[in-house]
């Protein structure tokens, strides 16, 4: 076992005694417990980890945390593969297999690096401007193959995910020194506290940084604070957990990566908080100069962490370029670790940091008023050109070159305030520090630590302890001012602002030249900050660059929106096991088991699992449907209509109440009489249809279409509660209580008689559109004579518990008459022949009663009802409205959804086929259609269009297609 060539011989918080084997692009490498994947790759001197999105430039590790724009790798294979995993956040584990996501044949010799030579082609808006002819869709598959990041798994996810709902008083985001102090203070005030930390261990920078807190070393302070928290039972600590978004009213989404070995991969938590303490640190910003994207260029704070925490040297010879004080402790620690720092450039004209003198004494030159201008290197960094700039940083005074294999940059620290803005906080650009800081206190979110602008650990802890219920205080220390972050001049096409999306300064120039002014518009045009890192290292520089080009102050430009998720969340975690039946549950009728046992092809209709048809041995689906249709037309069929919505309305005002909903008159409805009735929305559009009966003077019963039962009950309730609260009615949905068995066909009466109901079934006594409450085989039953097939039909409602026995009795007694159970598909054909409409299929969100031939009923009812007034609006009485008519074709089968044109003169559609099928007698294709002014077109031919092409013609007819006089219905 050999440590990586860039592993320092001492230091770090890794376990050097234990090797961890992993692979990168198939090459076996070794790291140690405590390493991240990025640290282990750097230790092994793997510098090129990927190719950039547009130009296929080689890229290496740039950061040490969630802001990483380059080191996005594909982990594992098969069903568990993870795309775009940030190597900087991935703990190393034994057997980890990582691959670069771009580059062919491999990431080191990428053929597509040619794209870098033709870089001017790939300016902002390139796709939109270039791939226009013949259409974008023609190019899209090829471009998608070339572009993009990782590959999503295509196999079913074998892992389990959980969702959890919880409450707390205070959520502390970030388990560094400030977060720990805030959590302990809140917990000691007897508040219910949650502390979440994105890394697998608490402590943040204090785990490895030099420095003392409250008289002890930072590491000792962390250990004792964690111990104190452990003794309190009102604190919950979740490591490996990211707060991905803050929503209204203190709701926070957390995503936890589980390592508990209980088979749960991720746990998504919806946490309701009263207060949030945001101690999520700050993100170091880069500097902008020519070729600032080469592998070997890294954020200075990240390099600090690689050296101190992982004992990994970022290079052999380093140059540090900064515009602020934070790089000096980094330089001191690197020199102390034996790493050669060739020089430091500081963009500020004067450097006051005390360490600068110490470093000079140790032989590290510190150049004031200087910046990196350009870099050299083949694949990886080999040298940097530095330059002294004038005091206004607008011109270059002198230049010189330094050979180095790592360049550490620091452009200041931008507080990580995405969650603060999601909670409603506003940011403003701080001109001294060149970062975005809070502009107003927010009652629901307090800031702590570096997120509050406090980079001293001791001060941060003191501040966090005192947070209590105060608003956020943002530390403003004038000495922390930052120098310029952008070199003057140079080649803007080679100056990267957004590394992940390959957006350069020239792209911003182009956007401004094309008059994009708002930073939000520039963002969308150039895609800056829109990639997987959401602009964590690019948004701030973009504001400065755009403001400079518009000759305005960055403080007046505003900033882009930092939307959730803060870090990508897997779809598995969001779905959290809610797939299949748990995603969209369906309902089953009381006869479900019988259907399953008797060959039913089950499908979901209106949220219910219902038989489409019943397959017999050797039958195709079409055979089965035809057999069932024939049985109903010639003998008898039995249909499970239990999903039919049933609602009882009780009370002295029940009839009056319902009369206000239906277009039909209900005052004349006699006991035992059934009325087919239609209800409207207030805008006159048909909402639902069904039947109404009076069970007794104070008890009405209505039925609704299967898919509308809940909606109609809700609709009735809304009017009862909000408009007519004084009406004495109670609304009782009883759909589940009653099973509905629909016995239909010429032999229905004979079969029902065999079950000996205690009511007279003769036509004269029990005619069509009536209802009897009777006893059937000792069971109470509500028997309706209503029909959706056009044949003599008894809809037998029995308590759900008795459904199976009555169903079987009907089949047993019906056997001699040729009875067959039939499914929804047969019913659709039967009802189509009769021209019976299905609400939502043959009507849409514009259909008024007149359109479906019920205008005479609405006009006959003088009393007001919901929607009545709307029927008198000019729009409702136009002659060219879509009207429901029948279609008959001598050619091909009609297809529902096909469009109709009356003549060739109009360029638009004149309607469409809503239902289609064949006549059961001779197979003639028929259909129902909504056609512009359709009722004036009877016996005329219209053209049928499908998928943009004419597929045939059909004749407009008036339904029904079967038994127009209704003799069979009234039999």
């Amino acid at each position, binding site marked *: 076992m050999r440590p990586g060539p860039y592993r320092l011989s001492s230091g770090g918080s890794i376990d050097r005694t234990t090797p961890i084997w992993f692979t990168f692009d198939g090459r076996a490498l070794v790291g140690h417990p405590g390493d991240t994947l990025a640290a282990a790759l750097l230790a092994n001197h793997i510098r090129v980890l990927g190719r950039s999105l547009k130009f296929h430039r080689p890229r290496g590790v740039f950061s040490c945390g969630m802001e990483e724009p380059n080191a996005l790798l594909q982990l594992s294979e098969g069903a568990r593969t993870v795309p775009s995993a940030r190597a900087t956040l991935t703990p190393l584990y034994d057997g980890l297999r990582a691959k670069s996501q771009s580059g062919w044949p491999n990431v080191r010799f990428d053929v597509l690096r040619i794209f870098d030579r033709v870089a001017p082609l790939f300016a902002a808006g390139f796709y939109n401007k270039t791939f226009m002819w013949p259409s974008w869709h023609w190019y899209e598959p090829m471009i998608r193959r070339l572009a993009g990041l990782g590959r999503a798994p295509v196999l079913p996810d074998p892992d389990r995910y959980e969702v959890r709902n919880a409450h707390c008083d205070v959520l502390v985001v970030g388990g560094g020194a400030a977060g720990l102090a805030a959590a302990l203070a809140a917990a000691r005030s007897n508040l219910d506290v949650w502390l979440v930390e994105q890394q697998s261990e608490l402590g943040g920078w204090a785990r490895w940084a030099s420095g003392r807190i409250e008289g002890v070393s930072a590491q000792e302070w962390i250990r004792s604070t964690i111990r104190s928290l452990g003794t309190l039972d009102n604190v919950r600590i979740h490591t490996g957990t990211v707060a991905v978004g803050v929503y209204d*009213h203190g709701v926070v989404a957390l995503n936890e990566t589980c390592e508990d070995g209980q088979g749960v991969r991720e746990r998504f938590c919806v946490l309701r908080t009263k207060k949030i303490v945001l101690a999520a640190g700050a993100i170091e910003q880069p500097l902008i100069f020519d070729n600032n994207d080469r592998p070997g260029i890294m954020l200075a704070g990240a390099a600090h962490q690689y050296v101190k925490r992982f004992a990994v040297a970022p290079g052999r010879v380093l140059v540090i370029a900064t515009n602020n004080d934070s790089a000096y402790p980094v330089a001191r620690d690197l020199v102390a670790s034996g790493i050669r720092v060739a020089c430091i450039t500081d963009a500020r004209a004067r450097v006051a940091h005390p360490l600068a003198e110490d470093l000079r004494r140790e032989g590290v030159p510190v150049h004031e008023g200087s910046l990196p201008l350009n870099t050299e290197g083949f694949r990886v960094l080999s040298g940097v050109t530095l330059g002294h700039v004038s005091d206004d940083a607008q011109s270059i005074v002198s230049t010189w070159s330094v050979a180095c294999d790592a360049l550490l940059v620091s452009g200041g620290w931008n507080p990580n305030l995405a969650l603060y803005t999601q909670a409603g906080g506003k940011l403003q650009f701080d001109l001294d520090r060149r970062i975005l800081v809070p502009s107003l206190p927010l009652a629901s979110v307090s800031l702590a630590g570096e997120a509050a602008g406090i980079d001293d650990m001791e001060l941060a802890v003191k501040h966090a302890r005192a947070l209590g219920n105060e608003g956020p205080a943002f530390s403003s220390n004038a000495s922390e001012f930052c120098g310029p972050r952008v070199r003057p001049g140079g080649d803007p096409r080679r100056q990267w602002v957004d590394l992940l999306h390959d957006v350069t300064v020239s792209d911003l120039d182009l956007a401004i030249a094309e008059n994009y002014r708002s930073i939000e518009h520039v963002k969308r045009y150039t895609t800056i900050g829109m990639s997987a890192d959401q602009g964590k290292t690019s948004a701030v520089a973009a504001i400065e660059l755009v403001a400079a080009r518009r000759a305005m102050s960055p403080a007046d430009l505003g900033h882009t929106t930092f939307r959730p998720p803060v870090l990508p969340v897997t779809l598995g975690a969001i779905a959290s096991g809610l797939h299949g039946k748990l995603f969209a549950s369906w309902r089953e009728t009381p006869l479900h088991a019988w259907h399953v046992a008797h060959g039913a092809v089950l499908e979901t209709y209106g949220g219910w699992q219902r038989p489409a048809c019943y397959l017999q041995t050797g039958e195709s689906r079409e055979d089965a449907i035809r057999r069932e249709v024939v049985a109903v037309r010639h003998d008898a069929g039995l249909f499970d209509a239990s999903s039919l919505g049933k609602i009882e309305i009780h009370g002295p005002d029940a009839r009056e109440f319902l009369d206000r909903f239906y277009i039909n008159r209900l005052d004349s409805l006699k006991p035992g009489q059934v009325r087919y009735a239609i209800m409207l929305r207030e805008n006159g559009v048909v909402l639902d249809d069904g039947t109404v009966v009076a069970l007794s003077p104070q008890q009405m019963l209505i039925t609704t279409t299967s898919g509308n039962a809940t909606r109609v009950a809700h609709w009735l309730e809304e009017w009862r509660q909000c408009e007519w609260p004084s009406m004495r009615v109670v609304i009782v949905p009883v759909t589940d209580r009653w099973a509905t068995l629909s016995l239909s066909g010429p032999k229905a009466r004979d079969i029902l008689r065999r079950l000996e109901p205690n009511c007279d079934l003769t036509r004269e006594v029990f005619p069509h559109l009536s209802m009897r409450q009777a006893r059937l085989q000792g069971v109470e039953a509500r028997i309706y004579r209503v029909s959706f097939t056009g044949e003599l039909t008894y809809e037998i409602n029995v308590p759900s518990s008795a459904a199976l026995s009555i169903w079987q009795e009907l089949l047993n007694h019906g056997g001699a008459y040729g009875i067959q159970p039939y499914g929804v598909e047969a019913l659709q054909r039967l009802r189509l022949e009769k021209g019976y409409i299905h609400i939502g299929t043959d009507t849409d969100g514009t259909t008024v009663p007149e359109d479906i031939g019920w205008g005479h009923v609405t006009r006959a009812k003088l009393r007001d009802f919901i929607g009545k*007034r709307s029927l008198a609006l000019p729009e409702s009485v136009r002659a060219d409205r879509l009207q429901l008519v029948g279609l008959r074709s001598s050619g091909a089968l009609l297809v529902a959804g096909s469009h109709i044109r009356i003549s060739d003169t109009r360029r638009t559609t004149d309607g469409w086929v809503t239902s289609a099928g064949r006549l059961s007698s001779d197979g003639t294709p028929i259909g129902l259609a909504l056609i512009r002014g359709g009722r004036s077109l009877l016996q005329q031919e219209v053209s049928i269009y499908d998928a943009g092409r004419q597929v045939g013609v059909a004749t407009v007819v008036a339904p029904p297609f079967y038994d127009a006089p209704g003799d069979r219905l009234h039999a």
Partner: protein
Amino acid sequence: MLRIQCPYCGLRDESEFTFGGQAHIVRPPPECSDIEWAQYLYVRENSKGRQEERWCHTFGCARWFNVTRDTQTHIIQPVSGADEPSSVPDTRAGEYCA
């Protein structure tokens, strides 16, 4: 996701509720003009700031009630039953029925 105080059940997640739009809209009589009826059907306030709304605790007690919500901050003010009088003057009726 909002957190809404149901006057009958207490503080619950928005996912338990159905939004019912602007509160205190008066249904004009059938004799009203087409314009008046169309206003009743389609025209709603879209204010920046406090607005009165109806909500139904559909997946709870199924009761309708009124709240005042600030459309900017989402702060929800004390609530009343749907049949109780408005806590702020109802400007709609006078404005459109004149």
